Protein backbone atom coordinates (compact mmCIF):
# COMPACT_ATOMS: atom_id res chain seq x y z
CA UNK A 1 0.00 0.00 0.00
CA UNK A 2 1.41 3.42 -0.96
CA UNK A 3 1.81 6.32 1.48
CA UNK A 4 -1.18 8.12 -0.06
CA UNK A 5 -3.51 5.15 0.37
CA UNK A 6 -2.23 4.53 3.92
CA UNK A 7 -3.08 8.15 4.80
CA UNK A 8 -6.47 7.83 3.11
CA UNK A 9 -7.19 4.67 5.12
CA UNK A 10 -6.03 6.36 8.35
CA UNK A 11 -8.47 9.23 7.72
CA UNK A 12 -11.35 6.84 7.07
CA UNK A 13 -10.51 4.77 10.17
CA UNK A 14 -10.22 7.95 12.29
CA UNK A 15 -13.66 9.16 11.27
CA UNK A 16 -15.09 5.71 12.09
CA UNK A 17 -13.33 5.79 15.49
CA UNK A 18 -14.94 9.18 16.22
CA UNK A 19 -18.36 7.64 15.61
CA UNK A 20 -17.49 4.53 17.62
CA UNK A 21 -16.41 6.68 20.60
CA UNK A 22 -19.91 8.17 20.67
CA UNK A 23 -21.22 4.69 21.40
CA UNK A 24 -21.59 4.39 25.15
CA UNK A 25 -20.97 0.67 25.50
CA UNK A 26 -17.72 0.45 23.50
CA UNK A 27 -14.54 0.57 25.59
CA UNK A 28 -11.29 1.93 24.15
CA UNK A 29 -9.94 -1.65 23.89
CA UNK A 30 -13.06 -2.79 22.01
CA UNK A 31 -12.60 0.05 19.52
CA UNK A 32 -8.92 -0.89 19.10
CA UNK A 33 -9.84 -4.53 18.47
CA UNK A 34 -12.54 -3.57 15.95
CA UNK A 35 -10.13 -1.13 14.28
CA UNK A 36 -7.62 -3.95 13.70
CA UNK A 37 -10.42 -6.05 12.27
CA UNK A 38 -11.39 -3.25 9.87
CA UNK A 39 -7.78 -2.81 8.74
CA UNK A 40 -7.33 -6.58 8.21
CA UNK A 41 -10.55 -6.64 6.24
CA UNK A 42 -9.50 -3.66 4.06
CA UNK A 43 -6.08 -5.29 3.43
CA UNK A 44 -7.73 -8.46 2.22
CA UNK A 45 -10.45 -6.71 0.14
CA UNK A 46 -7.97 -4.39 -1.57
CA UNK A 47 -6.18 -7.43 -3.05
CA UNK A 48 -9.39 -8.23 -4.98
CA UNK A 49 -9.11 -5.07 -7.09
CA UNK A 50 -11.19 -2.68 -4.98
CA UNK A 51 -9.67 0.71 -4.12
CA UNK A 52 -9.22 1.79 -0.48
CA UNK A 53 -12.51 3.69 -0.26
CA UNK A 54 -14.50 0.80 -1.74
CA UNK A 55 -12.72 -1.76 0.45
CA UNK A 56 -13.45 0.35 3.51
CA UNK A 57 -17.17 0.61 2.68
CA UNK A 58 -17.43 -3.18 2.29
CA UNK A 59 -15.40 -3.78 5.48
CA UNK A 60 -17.64 -1.36 7.37
CA UNK A 61 -20.76 -3.07 6.09
CA UNK A 62 -19.41 -6.46 7.17
CA UNK A 63 -18.43 -5.35 10.65
CA UNK A 64 -21.90 -3.84 11.27
CA UNK A 65 -22.97 -0.29 12.14
CA UNK A 66 -22.00 1.23 15.47
CA UNK A 67 -25.61 1.25 16.77
CA UNK A 68 -25.91 -2.53 16.21
CA UNK A 69 -22.47 -3.08 17.75
CA UNK A 70 -23.43 -0.91 20.73
CA UNK A 71 -26.47 -3.08 21.48
CA UNK A 72 -24.44 -6.30 21.33
CA UNK A 73 -21.48 -4.96 23.33
CA UNK A 74 -23.87 -3.55 25.94
CA UNK A 75 -24.78 -7.14 26.86
CA UNK A 76 -21.21 -7.87 27.98
CA UNK A 77 -20.12 -4.36 29.00
CA UNK A 78 -23.09 -3.43 31.24
CA UNK A 79 -20.90 -3.01 34.36
CA UNK A 80 -18.43 -0.84 32.50
CA UNK A 81 -21.20 1.38 31.06
CA UNK A 82 -22.49 2.17 34.56
CA UNK A 83 -18.95 2.74 35.91
CA UNK A 84 -18.42 5.30 33.15
CA UNK A 85 -21.79 6.98 33.78
CA UNK A 86 -21.17 7.26 37.53
CA UNK A 87 -17.60 8.45 36.87
CA UNK A 88 -18.87 11.38 34.79
CA UNK A 89 -21.72 12.06 37.24
CA UNK A 90 -19.28 12.28 40.15
CA UNK A 91 -16.89 14.20 37.89
CA UNK A 92 -19.72 16.59 37.07
CA UNK A 93 -20.31 17.38 40.71
CA UNK A 94 -16.57 17.88 41.39
CA UNK A 95 -16.32 20.19 38.37
CA UNK A 96 -19.36 22.11 39.56
CA UNK A 97 -17.77 22.68 42.99
CA UNK A 98 -14.47 23.77 41.39
CA UNK A 99 -16.22 25.97 38.82
CA UNK A 100 -18.22 27.75 41.55
CA UNK A 101 -15.07 28.45 43.60
CA UNK A 102 -13.10 29.61 40.55
CA UNK A 103 -15.86 31.80 39.12
CA UNK A 104 -16.55 33.38 42.53
CA UNK A 105 -12.84 34.15 43.04
CA UNK A 106 -12.59 35.53 39.49
CA UNK A 107 -15.66 37.75 39.92
CA UNK A 108 -14.38 38.99 43.32
CA UNK A 109 -11.07 39.96 41.70
CA UNK A 110 -12.97 41.61 38.85
CA UNK A 111 -15.06 43.65 41.32
CA UNK A 112 -11.90 44.68 43.17
CA UNK A 113 -10.44 46.05 39.94
CA UNK A 114 -13.73 47.77 39.03
CA UNK A 115 -13.91 49.35 42.52
CA UNK A 116 -10.33 50.59 42.26
CA UNK A 117 -11.26 52.28 38.98
CA UNK A 118 -13.64 54.47 41.00
CA UNK A 119 -17.01 53.09 39.85
CA UNK A 120 -19.93 53.18 42.30
CA UNK A 121 -20.39 50.01 44.41
CA UNK A 122 -23.83 49.52 42.84
CA UNK A 123 -22.40 49.53 39.31
CA UNK A 124 -19.53 47.23 40.42
CA UNK A 125 -22.05 44.79 41.91
CA UNK A 126 -24.18 44.81 38.73
CA UNK A 127 -21.09 44.24 36.53
CA UNK A 128 -19.92 41.41 38.82
CA UNK A 129 -23.33 39.71 38.77
CA UNK A 130 -23.57 40.07 34.97
CA UNK A 131 -20.12 38.52 34.57
CA UNK A 132 -21.12 35.58 36.79
CA UNK A 133 -24.29 34.97 34.75
CA UNK A 134 -22.37 35.30 31.45
CA UNK A 135 -19.73 32.73 32.51
CA UNK A 136 -22.34 30.24 33.71
CA UNK A 137 -24.42 30.66 30.54
CA UNK A 138 -21.25 30.16 28.45
CA UNK A 139 -20.46 26.92 30.29
CA UNK A 140 -24.07 25.77 29.91
CA UNK A 141 -23.95 26.47 26.16
CA UNK A 142 -20.68 24.53 25.82
CA UNK A 143 -22.17 21.57 27.70
CA UNK A 144 -25.40 21.62 25.64
CA UNK A 145 -23.55 21.74 22.32
CA UNK A 146 -21.27 18.89 23.46
CA UNK A 147 -24.27 16.83 24.60
CA UNK A 148 -26.07 17.39 21.29
CA UNK A 149 -22.91 16.43 19.38
CA UNK A 150 -22.51 19.78 17.57
CA UNK A 151 -19.34 20.84 19.43
CA UNK A 152 -16.15 18.78 19.49
CA UNK A 153 -14.28 21.26 21.74
CA UNK A 154 -14.41 19.20 24.96
CA UNK A 155 -14.38 15.84 23.15
CA UNK A 156 -11.04 16.52 21.51
CA UNK A 157 -9.44 17.94 24.65
CA UNK A 158 -10.54 15.52 27.37
CA UNK A 159 -9.76 11.79 26.94
CA UNK A 160 -12.82 9.52 26.87
CA UNK A 161 -15.14 12.55 26.86
CA UNK A 162 -18.11 11.92 24.58
CA UNK A 163 -21.52 13.53 24.21
CA UNK A 164 -22.73 10.88 26.67
CA UNK A 165 -20.21 12.16 29.23
CA UNK A 166 -21.70 15.65 28.82
CA UNK A 167 -25.22 14.26 29.18
CA UNK A 168 -24.45 12.30 32.38
CA UNK A 169 -22.36 15.12 33.79
CA UNK A 170 -25.18 17.66 33.22
CA UNK A 171 -27.80 15.20 34.49
CA UNK A 172 -25.96 14.78 37.80
CA UNK A 173 -25.60 18.56 38.26
CA UNK A 174 -29.28 19.09 37.47
CA UNK A 175 -30.31 16.29 39.83
CA UNK A 176 -28.15 17.63 42.67
CA UNK A 177 -29.52 21.15 42.19
CA UNK A 178 -33.17 20.16 42.00
CA UNK A 179 -33.02 17.79 45.00
CA UNK A 180 -30.80 20.05 47.13
CA UNK A 181 -32.80 23.23 46.54
CA UNK A 182 -36.18 21.57 46.89
CA UNK A 183 -35.22 20.00 50.24
CA UNK A 184 -33.51 23.19 51.45
CA UNK A 185 -36.50 25.38 50.55
CA UNK A 186 -38.98 22.98 52.15
CA UNK A 187 -37.02 22.51 55.39
CA UNK A 188 -36.32 26.26 55.74
CA UNK A 189 -39.93 27.10 55.12
CA UNK A 190 -41.15 24.57 57.70
CA UNK A 191 -38.54 25.60 60.29
CA UNK A 192 -39.18 29.30 59.76
CA UNK A 193 -42.87 28.73 60.37
CA UNK A 194 -42.45 26.47 63.42
CA UNK A 195 -39.38 27.98 65.19
CA UNK A 196 -38.88 31.41 66.78
CA UNK A 197 -36.51 33.88 65.11
CA UNK A 198 -33.73 33.26 67.66
CA UNK A 199 -33.98 29.48 67.44
CA UNK A 200 -33.98 29.66 63.65
CA UNK A 201 -30.85 31.83 63.50
CA UNK A 202 -29.08 29.63 66.07
CA UNK A 203 -29.85 26.60 63.94
CA UNK A 204 -28.69 28.40 60.80
CA UNK A 205 -25.32 29.15 62.46
CA UNK A 206 -24.83 25.50 63.50
CA UNK A 207 -25.78 24.42 59.97
CA UNK A 208 -23.23 26.83 58.50
CA UNK A 209 -20.45 25.35 60.70
CA UNK A 210 -21.49 21.84 59.71
CA UNK A 211 -21.50 22.76 56.02
CA UNK A 212 -18.04 24.33 56.29
CA UNK A 213 -16.69 21.09 57.81
CA UNK A 214 -18.63 18.73 55.52
CA UNK A 215 -17.94 20.39 52.14
CA UNK A 216 -14.19 19.59 51.99
CA UNK A 217 -14.89 16.07 53.26
CA UNK A 218 -17.54 15.54 50.57
CA UNK A 219 -15.12 16.87 47.97
CA UNK A 220 -12.48 14.35 49.14
CA UNK A 221 -14.98 11.46 49.03
CA UNK A 222 -16.03 12.43 45.49
CA UNK A 223 -12.43 12.70 44.28
CA UNK A 224 -11.60 9.27 45.75
CA UNK A 225 -14.72 7.74 44.14
CA UNK A 226 -13.83 9.27 40.77
CA UNK A 227 -10.22 8.03 41.11
CA UNK A 228 -11.31 4.46 41.83
CA UNK A 229 -13.79 4.51 38.91
CA UNK A 230 -11.18 6.07 36.62
CA UNK A 231 -9.15 2.86 36.74
CA UNK A 232 -12.15 0.84 35.52
CA UNK A 233 -13.06 3.38 32.84
CA UNK A 234 -9.63 4.08 31.36
CA UNK A 235 -7.86 0.76 32.01
CA UNK A 236 -10.40 -2.04 31.50
CA UNK A 237 -9.30 -5.36 33.01
CA UNK A 238 -9.12 -7.05 29.60
CA UNK A 239 -6.19 -4.82 28.54
Amino acid sequence: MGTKTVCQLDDLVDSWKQRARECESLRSNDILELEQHLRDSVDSLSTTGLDIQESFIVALHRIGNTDQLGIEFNKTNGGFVWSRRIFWMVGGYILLMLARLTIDAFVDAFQLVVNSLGLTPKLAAILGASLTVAIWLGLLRLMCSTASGSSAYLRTRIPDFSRWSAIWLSASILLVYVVAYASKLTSHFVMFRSLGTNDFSQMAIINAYFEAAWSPLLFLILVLTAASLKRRVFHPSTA
Partner: protein
Amino acid sequence: MISKELVAASSRPLILAILSKGEDYGYSIIQQVRELSDNKIEWTEGMLYPVLHRLEKEGLIVATWKESDSGRKRKYYRLSATGGESLRREREQWFAVHTTLGKLWGRRLCVN
Protein backbone atom coordinates in the same frame (compact mmCIF):
# COMPACT_ATOMS: atom_id res chain seq x y z
CA MET B 1 -27.88 -19.42 3.74
CA ILE B 2 -28.17 -20.62 7.34
CA SER B 3 -30.78 -18.91 9.55
CA LYS B 4 -29.74 -16.21 12.04
CA GLU B 5 -30.85 -18.31 15.02
CA LEU B 6 -28.77 -21.30 14.00
CA VAL B 7 -25.77 -19.07 13.25
CA ALA B 8 -26.07 -17.56 16.73
CA ALA B 9 -26.46 -20.96 18.40
CA SER B 10 -23.46 -22.45 16.62
CA SER B 11 -21.12 -19.50 17.26
CA ARG B 12 -19.87 -20.82 20.64
CA PRO B 13 -18.89 -24.35 19.51
CA LEU B 14 -17.38 -22.94 16.31
CA ILE B 15 -15.18 -20.46 18.18
CA LEU B 16 -14.14 -23.05 20.78
CA ALA B 17 -13.37 -25.62 18.07
CA ILE B 18 -11.22 -23.18 16.07
CA LEU B 19 -9.34 -22.09 19.19
CA SER B 20 -8.73 -25.74 20.14
CA LYS B 21 -6.36 -25.83 17.14
CA GLY B 22 -4.30 -22.99 18.61
CA GLU B 23 -4.18 -19.30 19.47
CA ASP B 24 -6.02 -17.00 17.04
CA TYR B 25 -7.60 -13.55 16.59
CA GLY B 26 -11.07 -12.34 15.58
CA TYR B 27 -10.60 -11.63 11.89
CA SER B 28 -8.85 -14.95 11.29
CA ILE B 29 -11.61 -16.86 13.15
CA ILE B 30 -14.25 -15.31 10.87
CA GLN B 31 -12.25 -16.14 7.73
CA GLN B 32 -11.91 -19.77 8.82
CA VAL B 33 -15.65 -20.09 9.53
CA ARG B 34 -16.42 -18.56 6.13
CA GLU B 35 -14.07 -20.95 4.30
CA LEU B 36 -15.03 -24.08 6.23
CA SER B 37 -18.75 -23.45 5.70
CA ASP B 38 -18.34 -22.56 1.98
CA ASN B 39 -19.73 -19.09 2.74
CA LYS B 40 -22.93 -20.59 4.17
CA ILE B 41 -22.33 -19.32 7.71
CA GLU B 42 -22.23 -15.54 7.56
CA TRP B 43 -21.63 -13.54 10.73
CA THR B 44 -22.09 -9.80 11.12
CA GLU B 45 -18.38 -9.62 11.83
CA GLY B 46 -18.48 -7.13 14.72
CA MET B 47 -20.86 -9.41 16.61
CA LEU B 48 -18.11 -12.00 17.04
CA TYR B 49 -16.33 -9.84 19.61
CA PRO B 50 -19.08 -9.64 22.26
CA VAL B 51 -19.28 -13.47 22.02
CA LEU B 52 -15.49 -13.76 22.44
CA HIS B 53 -15.61 -11.37 25.42
CA ARG B 54 -18.44 -13.37 27.01
CA LEU B 55 -16.45 -16.61 26.62
CA GLU B 56 -13.47 -14.81 28.13
CA LYS B 57 -15.56 -13.67 31.12
CA GLU B 58 -16.78 -17.24 31.61
CA GLY B 59 -13.15 -18.38 31.70
CA LEU B 60 -13.48 -20.62 28.61
CA ILE B 61 -10.90 -18.66 26.65
CA VAL B 62 -7.94 -16.46 27.63
CA ALA B 63 -6.99 -13.26 25.80
CA THR B 64 -3.64 -11.50 25.39
CA TRP B 65 -2.67 -8.37 23.46
CA LYS B 66 0.33 -8.96 21.21
CA GLU B 67 2.06 -7.19 18.40
CA SER B 68 1.45 -8.92 15.06
CA ASP B 69 4.03 -9.37 12.28
CA SER B 70 2.70 -6.22 10.60
CA GLY B 71 3.39 -4.27 13.82
CA ARG B 72 -0.30 -3.91 14.72
CA LYS B 73 -1.51 -4.54 18.24
CA ARG B 74 -3.86 -7.51 18.17
CA LYS B 75 -5.89 -9.38 20.73
CA TYR B 76 -5.22 -13.12 20.55
CA TYR B 77 -7.46 -15.73 22.15
CA ARG B 78 -6.67 -19.26 23.26
CA LEU B 79 -8.67 -22.07 24.81
CA SER B 80 -8.45 -22.58 28.59
CA ALA B 81 -8.73 -25.96 30.34
CA THR B 82 -12.37 -25.16 31.23
CA GLY B 83 -12.92 -24.19 27.60
CA GLY B 84 -11.63 -27.60 26.47
CA GLU B 85 -14.08 -29.29 28.80
CA SER B 86 -16.94 -27.09 27.54
CA LEU B 87 -16.02 -27.90 23.93
CA ARG B 88 -16.18 -31.63 24.71
CA ARG B 89 -19.73 -31.22 26.09
CA GLU B 90 -20.79 -29.07 23.10
CA ARG B 91 -19.42 -31.73 20.74
CA GLU B 92 -21.46 -34.47 22.38
CA GLN B 93 -24.63 -32.38 22.15
CA TRP B 94 -24.13 -31.32 18.53
CA PHE B 95 -23.30 -34.91 17.52
CA ALA B 96 -26.48 -36.08 19.26
CA VAL B 97 -28.53 -33.61 17.16
CA HIS B 98 -26.58 -34.55 14.02
CA THR B 99 -27.09 -38.30 14.57
CA THR B 100 -30.81 -37.88 15.26
CA LEU B 101 -31.34 -35.83 12.11
CA GLY B 102 -29.18 -38.33 10.17
CA LYS B 103 -31.49 -41.17 11.22
CA LEU B 104 -34.58 -39.17 10.21
CA TRP B 105 -33.35 -37.76 6.90
CA GLY B 106 -30.89 -40.43 5.84
CA ARG B 107 -27.12 -40.28 6.00
CA ARG B 108 -26.43 -38.51 2.68
CA LEU B 109 -28.30 -35.27 3.53
CA CYS B 110 -26.47 -34.88 6.79
CA VAL B 111 -23.07 -35.52 5.32
CA ASN B 112 -23.66 -32.96 2.56
